Structures are given as structure tokens and as C-alpha cells.
């Protein structure tokens, strides 16, 4: 028998099911950024319908694929209560190292990619050890690594693009089922990461450590190891993103990943991840990445003056966060 549940408000009025549904939806944390995203797409499409042209959509998705891969790692790390400012430089380092190994040293492409990702993981490990074991602030450690890794990229590449790369690299940027490889890699990583965060013990430990480290340790969670793992994951994903950009460009450019660090952190925070740790989701973080990309692209397509675009991006970002706070206070979630 179908039982229809109708909520009775203190005033005695019956809430309509649609209203209940709306309230339930608004309690979902990701709904705030999703609504902001829908509004942004609608506004930009109204201003210039070509904003929703396939080429623009694909370009935006391809761009967020690179930053999104980094965003997945950064989101997990921030949920664990830390953050990494070196991701953009590690992306460049991964790209340059892979490019040099395959072009100058003749390493097979898959092996070069594996070494580059392993290097990213190692950089993450160093960040993690200095932060978690030595006790240095992540801000200082990863800021230092930002400069060191970028500098190393320039040294290894001789200050210029590593070019040409072997022809086989193009397979890393080939289209599969009509979409560039990077988008599929990003989608796979995002789905796995979301499942890990929602369903696995590792995901629960990340939330526990980020939410309250002492309580997590009392509960038997080895917080240091969890944070180290998150740092390593972030480094590895950053290097992988760099390799995918390298494949798209056909050269190992030491400028890959320039300014990604703040863009990624801003995006995941807009997507509902708290910088204090313990709160947020991969889905929300990626919606944040998509939202900022949509706004950046939409401002260009709408013909907004170039010098005003950063102002607009910043304003929209703050507005989106503000709206989400209002939603959170009124409906929870």
C-alpha cells in the first residue's frame, strides 16, 4: 500500500510534496553549487547562445579534466585537513620529466609516464613528511615546493619546451568514443575517488582525521599515515594531469600548470569543501571546478572586458559561496 507522508507544519498547514521535495533537495550540500552552475550556464547562454556550442562545451570539459584531476587530489587532502600549493609546479615537473625521458632517453612512453607519476607521488611524500612528521606548516612547505618543482622543471627542460616528442604520445590525447582521452581519465578518477570517499574505510578516515584529528587518533586511526597518503595521492594526480596536458600540446612545456594551485583550491572551496577539513565531497569539488571554468569562459563569450573578468570571477565566486551559506543555514546539509 502506498502511504503518502504529508508533513504538518506548526501552523497546521500541510506542506505540499513538491515543497518537501525541494526542502530535501536543498539539504543536499552540492545543490547550492549546482544551482549556481545552472544559473550561470543559463545566463551566459542567453547572452550568447554559442556559449553552449559543442566546441565550447568540449573545450571547457577538457580544461576541467586537467584541473579536475588535480582537484580530486586536492579535495581529498583538504578534507584530511591539509592543502598543497605545489600542484601546478608538480604538474609541470611530471610533464617535463616524462617528455625528457621519452624523447631524450628513449624510454617507452608508458614507462616514462609511470616514472613521472611516481615522481609526483615522491614529491607528495616529501611534502607530507615535512608537514606531518617534521611539523612544518603545509603553507610554507608546499609554497617552497611550488618554487622548487617549477625551478626544477626549468632546469630539466633547459628553460624551454621539450620538443619534439615521440609520435606515440598522441595516443594519450586521442579521442575515444568521440571524446579526448583526458576526459575519460578524469571521469574514471572522479568516479573512483567519489566511491572511495563515500564507501571506503580510507575515505571515512580522511573525514575523521580532517574533522578532528585528536578524536580520530583516539579512535585508533593513524592520522599521520592518512595525511601522508593524501599528500602522495595529490602529488601523483598532479603529475598525471601534467602528463595529459603534455600529450595534448605535443611538448613538455615547463609552464604547464602555472597558477593551478590557487584556481584548484578556490574551486574546491566553492564546491563546498571546508578549508578546516572534514567537510565536503568529490562531487561538490568537481562542480566547483566546473563552475569556475564556466564563469571564466562565459565572461569571454559574453564579451566582458578582459580587465574586468578577474573582478567578475572573484565576485561571482564570493556570491556563490554566500548563497551556499544561506542555503546551509536555512536548510542544513
Amino acid at each position, binding site marked *: 500500500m502506498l502511504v503518502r507522508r504529508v508533513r504538518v507544519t506548526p501552523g497546521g498547514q500541510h506542506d505540499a510534496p513538491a515543497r518537501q521535495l525541494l526542502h530535501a533537495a536543498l539539504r543536499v550540500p552540492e545543490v547550492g553549487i549546482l544551482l549556481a552552475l545552472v544559473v550561470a550556464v543559463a545566463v551566459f547562454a542567453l547572452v550568447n547562445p554559442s556559449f553552449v556550442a559543442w*566546441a565550447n562545451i568540449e573545450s571547457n570539459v577538457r580544461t576541467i579534466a586537467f584541473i579536475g584531476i588535480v582537484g580530486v587530489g586536492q579535495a581529498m587532502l583538504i578534507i584530511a585537513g591539509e592543502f598543497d600549493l605545489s600542484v601546478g609546479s608538480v604538474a609541470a615537473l611530471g610533464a617535463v620529466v616524462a617528455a625528457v625521458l621519452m624523447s631524450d632517453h628513449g624510454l617507452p612512453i608508458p614507462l616514462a609516464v609511470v616514472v613521472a607519476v611516481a615522481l609526483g607521488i615522491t614529491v607528495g611524500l616529501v611534502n607530507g613528511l615535512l608537514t606531518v612528521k617534521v611539523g612544518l606548516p603545509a603553507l610554507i612547505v608546499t609554497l617552497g615546493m611550488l618554487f622548487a618543482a617549477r625551478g626544477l622543471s626549468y632546469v630539466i627542460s633547459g628553460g624551454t619546451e621539450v620538443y619534439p616528442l615521440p609520435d606515440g604520445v598522441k595516443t594519450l590525447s586521442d579521442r575515444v568514443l568521440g571524446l579526448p582521452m583526458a576526459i575519460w581519465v578524469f571521469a574514471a578518477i572522479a568516479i573512483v575517488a567519489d566511491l572511495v570517499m563515500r564507501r571506503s574505510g580510507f575515505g571515512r578516515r580522511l573525514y575523521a582525521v580532517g574533522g578532528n584529528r585528536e578524536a580520530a587518533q583516539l579512535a585508533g586511526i593513524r592520522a599521520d599515515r592518512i595525511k601522508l597518503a593524501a599528500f602522495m595521492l595529490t602529488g601523483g594526480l598532479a603529475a598525471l594531469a601534467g602528463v595529459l596536458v603534455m600529450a595534448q600540446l605535443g611538448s613538455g612545456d615547463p609552464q604547464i600548470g*602555472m597558477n593551478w594551485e590557487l584556481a584548484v583550491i578556490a574551486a574546491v572551496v566553492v564546491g563546498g569543501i571546508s578549508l578546516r577539513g572534514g567537510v565536503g565531497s568529490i562531487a561538490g569539488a568537481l562542480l566547483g571546478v566546473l563552475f569556475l571554468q564556466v564563469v571564466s569562459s562565459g565572461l569571454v563569450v559574453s564579451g566582458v572586458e578582459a580587465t574586468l573578468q578577474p573582478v567578475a570571477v572573484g565576485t561571482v565566486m564570493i556570491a556563490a559561496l554566500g548563497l551556499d551559506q544561506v542555503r546551509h543555514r536555512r536548510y542544513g546539509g
Partner: protein
Amino acid sequence: MWEQDRGRWPRRLTLLSVAAALVALTATGCGSSDDSGDSASTGTQSAASTTASGEKDCSIEGKKIQFVAPLKSNPTMQVMAAGFEQRAEELGFDGTVLMSDDADPQKILALGQQAMTQGSDGMVIPPYDAALYPFIKQASDQGIPIITTHSSVPDSEDLGMKQDIHPDPAQYGAEAARAIGEQIGGRGTVAVTQGGFNPIENAAAESFAAAMKEQYPDVKVLKSQEEGFEPAAAISKAVSVLQSDDTIAAAYSTTGGGPKTWAGAADQAKRDLTIIGMDYTRPNLDLVRSGKVYAVVAQPIYEEHADAVDALKAVICGEEVEAEVSAESPLVTQDNVEEYFDLLDRTGT
């Protein structure tokens, strides 16, 4: 501006011929090769004589000159150094390249002091940082002729250098406008992007728009967008620019990443564009060779530094040289792209 440091100057300055005429007029005395051992502070001493035919016969054998610059592993800087070194060798100078690992001006100052200590008859210095100005003034005050290259020194600075050779962004911006206007038949829309809104790129973009307006009034030039220096983000922004206007027929970028940015964007948006960007790097030259990019602007980094050596010789030989020389930056198209591959091969970059 260092990412734009690629280019060629089709002909050397005619300094030597001008200098020869001046020599004949001023009949300045010339030192012999015997005084080459005295290398310190001899820069402005006359070392020229005139042959019976009126040609300059100035011995600079053994004169010590230095190229003091940053970023020794940077290919752009290596091309600059090659221009200096090869010309110095041709002329018989004892030329030395002193380059630092990075762009820290303090290291350049240390290298400059080292050159002065070891003895210098002249120096070529790219004044890329104002922190170098006091050293240039100090060396000039001590009688060492200095030629500054590539970056212009503000008019307000009186550093005493003999010549300032640098490319002119207004010139190559206008040249790019002429080429694009011609290629698109004087109609359509042109997108413009910059790596950043710095004075040099602003000048190039503004001169492009002004020249287009003057020569091809039916061509609409969009306001410049900042593509930045991150390649993936730059391509994405260029695709957005293309989506904003379906009449865009060409794109001009004032930065070295521009050719790759616009070639990538045209590919993603499946648009046929006439593209002009900066710098003759190998990837950019390949894009020109393949036809994906119509042309790149070639800043004359090799020639600038070869000409700087010519200017040093003229000064050492007692000639007057122009205080400021604007170096022409030609376009590299499919017609002359092989010359630039040869240049890169020759300079080992």
C-alpha cells in the same frame, strides 16, 4: 618579455659603413694591435685608422669584450650569446660570454664586476632589470663602452651607454596587422590575445589595432584578451573567444605561446584561421611549416647581439654610433621558415 625573445633582423645595421665615412671625415688616429694587451678602460680610446681607399682599418685584435647576461641554459639567451660570440670571433675580438644560471640581477652584477676586474674593452648587456642600471652607469663612468640590447632603457635614465638596441613592438604589431589584413582580404574579424597586460605586449596589441584600422578599415579587431602563460588554459580561453564571434577569421597573439594557443583553439573549434604569433621556437616554426600558423614575429635576437659587437668595434675605433637603434622584427612565413630552422641549428638551440 623574455618569453618573446625570438627573432631575426634581416640585415645588420650599417654601422660599419657609417663609421667608415665618419672616420674619413674626422681622421681619428688609430691604435695598433700592440696596445691590445692593455685592455682595461681602453674602450673609448681611438683605435681606428683609415686606409688609402677610405675604408676603416681599425685593429681590435685582442681587445676584450664581454656579453653579460642571465639564464645561460635558456635557448633564447643562447641565441643571443651566439650572435655575440660569432660576430666577436669574426672581427677578431677576445669575446667572452658571462651568463648566470638564473635571472637574479645580483648574479649579473657579480659577473659584470668580474669582467671589469679581468679587464674589459666593452660589454654587451641586456638591461632586463632596473637593478642593473647602476652597474651600467658605473662601467660607463669608468670608460668602458656599454651596448645595451633587447630591453630598452627608459629615456629618463642617463646611464652613459653608447647604444641601446631593441626591437620595436609597435613596428611588429603594425607589420602583423598588414599581413593579416592582406591574408583575410580586408574583411572579417580578428581576435587579439596577450600573455599579460605588460607595456611591451600592450604596445604590440595597440599598434596592431591602430594599423589595421588605418589600412583595413573593414576589418574588426576585437579587444585584447589575456591568454596567460598556462597552455591548456590559454587554449580554452581562445576557444571561448572563437565562440563569442563566428566571424573571426584571424588571430594575433603578442606572446610566444600564442601560435600554439591559437592553433590548438582552431583545431578544437574546427575553425580556419590566419594566425600570427611571436617567437621562432622549433614548435612554432613547425606550426608555420605545417600551415597551421601563418607567421610568427621574429625578434632579431641573434642580429641584435651581432650588431652590438659591431657597435662596440665602432666605438672602440673612435666612431660615433646612434644612441638608440630600433631593431626590425620580420615575419617568418612558409617562404622563409627554413632560414630560421637553419639559424636554430647553427646556434645549437
